[in-house]
């Protein structure tokens, strides 16, 4: 490297020749523009910005110039280096952007391919309907009560005013537990939970008793020997049939839709007196009984759908459970969950509900 030389004529110094610098800049710009990859640009950077590049050499030569010439030469070389540096940066950004875009394109994955990595399972719709019903009543301030499925006969029948020789007891198609005289049955309804609840706590009582029940029916499209019910029980001062009707109205509207209304019809159940059958207006045909000129299949053309039984708790039941019928009255009702499921979700055949085929539950997911 040469030291300062006061005698040196800048024009004589080839590297600092303005034309040569212009040429070097043009060469650099041309190569930068021509670079189509980051590697080519890197080569261009080495060639035109590296230590051995013409402009670097020119820059080094400035020191050798007499002071009078330094400023001008420095300015000329600085501008040239600035232009090259700017072009490099711009091209660098362009090429990097191109590369990033290309990588994203290359990384494209066809997400329409269904990758069943860890498929979600499903709840059984009977459980979901049951929980939904529970939530409706819990929201009204009720609690959920439960009991065993193998139950004492006294709780399943006698305490509910269904005496041993009462015809109603024969109509229940009961599973009996061996040996005869065991005093046990598979509960035929969730009503024994009513009795258990009244035996356990003092009024006011507002409970819903959901659960599995058993009847010796054969499985067919609409019957199953093992099914689910929910039973409501309210015992408090001043409870009337109007409260029963109000509760049922609120319930059916929340489960089946706004505007659905209930109708009570006289009926007979040993554990309630007065007793009532619960119908609700068919929400499919709006109660007209016909759909597009043909008989409505949901209600069989009657405009009403039978939901279950209800009534005022028989005072004999209250007494058996130790509740003073002079002070308290109560109502109770019982509805079937499978039936609600079939009605609400158009399930045509009971077999699908009870056979445990995963394809059935999978239709519903985890909320119903």
């Amino acid at each position, binding site marked *: 490297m040469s030291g300062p030389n006061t005698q040196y004529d800048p024009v004589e110094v080839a590297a600092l020749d303005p034309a040569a610098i212009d040429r070097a800049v043009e060469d650099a710009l041309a190569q930068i523009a021509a670079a189509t990859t980051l590697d080519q640009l890197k080569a261009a950077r080495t060639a035109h910005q590296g230590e051995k590049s013409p402009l670097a050499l020119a820059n080094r030569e400035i020191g050798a110039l007499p002071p009078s010439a330094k400023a001008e030469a420095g300015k000329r070389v600085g501008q040239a280096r600035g232009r090259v540096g700017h072009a490099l940066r711009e091209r660098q950004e362009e090429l990097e952007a191109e590369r990033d875009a290309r990588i994203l394109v290359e990384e494209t994955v066809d997400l329409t391919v269904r990758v069943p990595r860890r498929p979600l*399972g499903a709840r059984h719709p009977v459980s979901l309907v049951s929980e939904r019903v529970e939530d409706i009543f819990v929201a009204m301030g009720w609690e959920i009560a439960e009991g065993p499925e193998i139950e004492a006969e006294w709780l399943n029948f006698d305490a509910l005013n269904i005496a041993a020789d*009462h015809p109603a007891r024969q109509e229940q198609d009961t599973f009996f537990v061996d040996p005869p005289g065991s005093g*046990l049955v598979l509960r035929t309804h969730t009503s024994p939970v009513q009795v258990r609840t009244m035996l356990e706590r003092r009024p006011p009582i507002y409970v819903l008793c959901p659960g599995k029940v058993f009847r010796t029916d054969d499985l067919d499209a609409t019957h199953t020997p093992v099914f689910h019910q929910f039973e409501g029980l309210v015992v408090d001062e001043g409870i009337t049939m109007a409260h029963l*009707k109000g509760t049922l109205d609120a319930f059916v509207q929340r489960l089946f839709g706004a505007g659905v209304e209930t109708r009570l019809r006289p*009926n007979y159940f040993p554990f309630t007196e007065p007793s009532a059958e619960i119908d609700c207006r068919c929400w499919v045909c709006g109660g007209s009984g016909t759909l597009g000129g043909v008989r409505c299949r949901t209600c069989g053309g009657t405009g009403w759908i039978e939901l279950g039984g209800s009534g*005022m708790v028989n005072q004999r039941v209250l007494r058996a459970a130790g509740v003073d019928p002079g002070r308290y009255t109560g109502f109770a009702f019982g509805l079937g969950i499978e039936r609600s499921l079939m009605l609400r979700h158009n399930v045509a055949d009971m077999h699908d509900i009870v056979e445990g085929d995963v*394809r059935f539950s999978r239709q519903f997911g*985890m909320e119903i």
Partner: protein
Amino acid sequence: MHAPVSWLRELADVPADATGADVAAALVRVGLEEEGLHGGDVRGPLVVGRVLEATDEPQRNGKVIRWCSVDVGQNGQMLTEGRHQEIVCGAHNFAVGDLVVCVLPGGVLPGGFEIGARKTYGHLSNGMICSARELGLGDDHEGIIVLQELLGGQATVDLKPGDDAIALLGLGDEVVEVNVTPDRGYCLSLRGIAREYALSTGVAFRDPADLSVRTGEGTRVAEPPVGAQSPVRPYAVHLRDQAPLAGRAGCDRYIARVVRGVDVGAASPAWMQKRLTQVGMRPISLAVDVTNYVMMLLGQPLHAFDLDTLSGSVGTRRARPGERLTTLDGVERRLDPEDLLVVDGSDTPLAVAGVMGGASSEVSASTTNLLIEAAHFDPVSVARSARRHRLSTEASRRFERGVDPDVTAAAAQLAVDLLVGLGGGTADGVTDVDHRVPREPVDFDTQLPTRYVGLEYPRDEVVTTLRAIGCEVGGDGRVVSVLPPSWRPDLLDGPDLVEEVARVRGYDQIPSAVPPGLAGAGLTHGQRVRRLVATTLAQQGLVEVLTYPFVGPELFDRLGYPADDPRRRTVRLGNPLSEEAPLMRTSVLDTLVEALRRNVARGTRDCALYELGLVVAPREEQPAAPVPGIDDRPDDETLRLVLHAVPPQPRHVAFAATGDAEAGGPWGAARPVDAADAVAWARGVARALGLDLVVSAADRAPWHPGRCARLALADGTTVGHAGELHPKVTAALELPARTVAGELDVDVLVAATGSPVHARPLSTYPPAHTDVALVVPEEVPAAAVEAALREGAGGSLESVVLFDLYRGDQVPAAHRSLAYRLTFRADDRTMTTDEVSALRDRAVAAAARATGAVQR
């Protein structure tokens, strides 16, 4: 119960324009359930025809058909341009000149059978000559109806061919079928139905039991005036009951009537046959038809004995042990000492009282003298006998539900009158043994309906309604004395009467009001846990199912349970759905495996199921449950015994899976489900509840002895087991090999949770990691090594993760190397390398002590 509208019209003022549907609606309003509407579905042309020619033509199939030419009046012109109809008929019980019933093409018979002209046996048959059965008029289909025989010569004098037969035979008559609830026994009669109709619509009711007012066809007989029968030879009746049920006599009223010289071979009249057919009974013979007819009209079952087979008197007693009786259905029945029998004077059993008569005293073709029984039997006694002998008869159904004890005499009298009038007999005197207990009035607060229903019922309305249903009401205060009518044994207390008041005003008048309610506590902890368990399994990919909890005894063998396994102890059903599955499951897995098998059989190769449900875990000594009375709450000790007799029924969750846990495809290879999945699902369930299960190796049926994990709480309480099923079990259950399964006791999980988690503050200092490889004998479980490391490393250990497992040249035979990454973190400082090393050394030392581990 079937109620023909035309019959009903005789007992109540049914408006002339009321249809069957109107009648049904009126009955439904007061609490009868409509089961169906029958009849009224016959469409013409159905006309009277006169047979002009009849030619028998033998056929190649051996049948002889009769080709007839029938004059059907001007109806013929529509079809055969005025010529007589040519009709082919299979019956031969008629002659030229007879009047018959012809359905012509276009007509519709009961059941919707539309008739057309059709070619048959070489002729074009223009319709059909009808039998009684084809028209729904009776059971007779052997021959066609000859109108002169059916209606009598006198009634057919004015008939001419072409007359409408629908009106003539009452085929337009509709029959309303209602379901009668067990409390409404009186509605198992036209008398009861008519009373309800009158109550619902406010029209007049004529009581057919009031024999002084005779109306209608049913009593259109030439009878002597009531009470004018010959008083000779009243038949002796001896009522005995050695063993009354609950102190009630088996029979509190018995009327015996003798009718002599009856032509029992005579057919009952057409009107009676038609009515019996309409109400679903088969006409049989005059004697049987009359007793059935009176039962249908009045609700009082009657029995007719062949008097000449009896030894001079009739009575009741309970059966003797070992005694037998062949009933009318031909079955020899072993009688029970609780059965009440009707016996004759020589103590020979004649009938199971109120259920079915015996064959030996049955009315036969040679019978001429009849004994008619009209009795009132104890409902409970009849119910038990009917149940014991599996004999639900028209009589037992009525006695069980309560027959009006005041209708007995009228029913006997009406039957006698009909037999005398229609069968040409003569009646002896009346024997009426009457031990009826007078009914008790009940005190009734007239404000009770308002209190129960939530609707204002004025006192006047209450009293008027009670009188309308037949009660006698006395007193003029707020509390009145009510004597329910004899036909309403179900009216026992205030609420029973409230229902009457409410249903007569109409349930549709009841307003809708939300009860006051209270601030509920929401779901219990156990209920919330259960939902979370179910949801967690579903979120791990399993599908919930609900199976029937019934199993067969050989299942426990297939599951490989040892002989003394407590899970073999279960509850047996006396009347299972299937003899193959009489037991209740003791694990949910018992029945879940069958659901898994079914899914696989249906083509779901990759299948993971779970079920939450109750199982039974009976005590070793299972006491019988007492059955106390219901007049009061049982005393505490009795109640304890009732509740204690109910076997414990813990709630379990089980899961089972087969096939791939992760499916294979373009993204990679499939991963078959394995035992570790089963353990992971169980741990997932526990973790969702904030619990970490302790996993240890176990050998327990039905799992693979080398691939079974016991899952326990930190305190050692077993929660359940999970792993791969034993190969013998999968083979026996026809499940795919390598099926995995698990079962957890949800009640244990519920009991172990529920107290609030106390949160620890989080350290913001950096963690320090250190790795350690330990060589242990094969049989040392990883969980034991990990537990020892945790114990030795102390409180600042944050996690222990197994990141490598090695077997091979670098370790001794029957050993493996477990490589763990230990992560430490202090609450108050950055830990130094020296500190971490020291803790790691302590952890390794602890593992060495506990498991013989050697650091590699």
